[in-house]
């Protein structure tokens, strides 16, 4: 029996859903007043996992640009690549320092870390940068966001029909 065919918009839906989830988590994680420290810490670490998925979905672009970086490439693409690299470094630092200054999540896991005010400074500083870098990242990919949103609103049935066929075990 043949495996069910993937719906036409499946990859786009998956990428858009992951990116939306990441953005909502980003907004929540920056709102410690609303979530409280414990949720802030767990959500921050969970965001790390979603960032990995986000990177996996953009893997072909990352590898393609890395290979071509020193050859012929549009300036805008080069800037976008460098910005993404900076964003990756920044988020790594935010999550790493977040773990190091964690007050409840690490304790729950049975790990006691010494209090270090220096790491807290780095955490606050890199968090501030993360807002601006994410803003620029979103702005540079804004056309993709709008285009994808339009496509998914206009043609949602392609995905839904595909899912229904796949669930029924058909081959489409």
């Amino acid at each position, binding site marked *: 029996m043949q495996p069910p065919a993937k719906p036409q918009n499946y990859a786009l839906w998956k990428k858009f859903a992951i990116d939306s989830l990441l953005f909502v988590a*980003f*907004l929540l994680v*920056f*709102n*410690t*007043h*609303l979530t409280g420290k414990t949720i802030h810490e767990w959500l921050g670490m969970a965001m790390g996992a979603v960032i*990995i998925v986000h*990177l*996996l979905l953009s*893997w072909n672009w990352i590898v393609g640009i890395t290979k071509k970086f020193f050859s012929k490439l549009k300036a805008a693409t080069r800037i976008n690549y460098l910005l993404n690299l900076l964003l*990756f*470094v920044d988020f*790594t*630092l935010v999550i*790493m*320092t977040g773990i190091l200054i964690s007050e409840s999540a690490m304790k729950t896991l049975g790990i006691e870390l010494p209090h270090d*005010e*220096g*790491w*807290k*400074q*780095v955490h*606050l*500083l890199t968090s501030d940068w993360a*807002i*601006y870098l*994410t*803003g*620029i990242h*979103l*702005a*540079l990919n*804004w*056309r993709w966001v709008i285009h994808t949103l339009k496509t998914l609103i206009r043609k949602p049935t392609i995905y839904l029909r595909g899912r229904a066929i796949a669930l029924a075990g058909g081959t489409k």
Partner: protein
Amino acid sequence: MKTLFKILVILLSAMLIAGAAYALRRTDWGQSLLAKSGEERPEGAEMFTDGERPTPPDEDFVRDSASGFRLESLASFAKTLIPIALLIFMINTLPALFQSITRRFQRGPI
């Protein structure tokens, strides 16, 4: 297998960055840099010694409803969303606006 390899590459890169940051933090230069940024950090940021910590705002001011909703939460959302929205607007709209204005002036008076 391929995905596992990709995940390992991402985790290894993150560990390299974290390791470099950790090593840098241990150097004299890293420590002096942190001390400096601590001095420069404006008041209102979440970093005070016990003596410097400002008094929290009046409960009536921050509480918006009997359910305990805090205006601070809304302000916190705005603090994140406004810079992002401004950056999206600036990067996507201003160049086009600037281009249309310069084109208009190149055409001369109506």
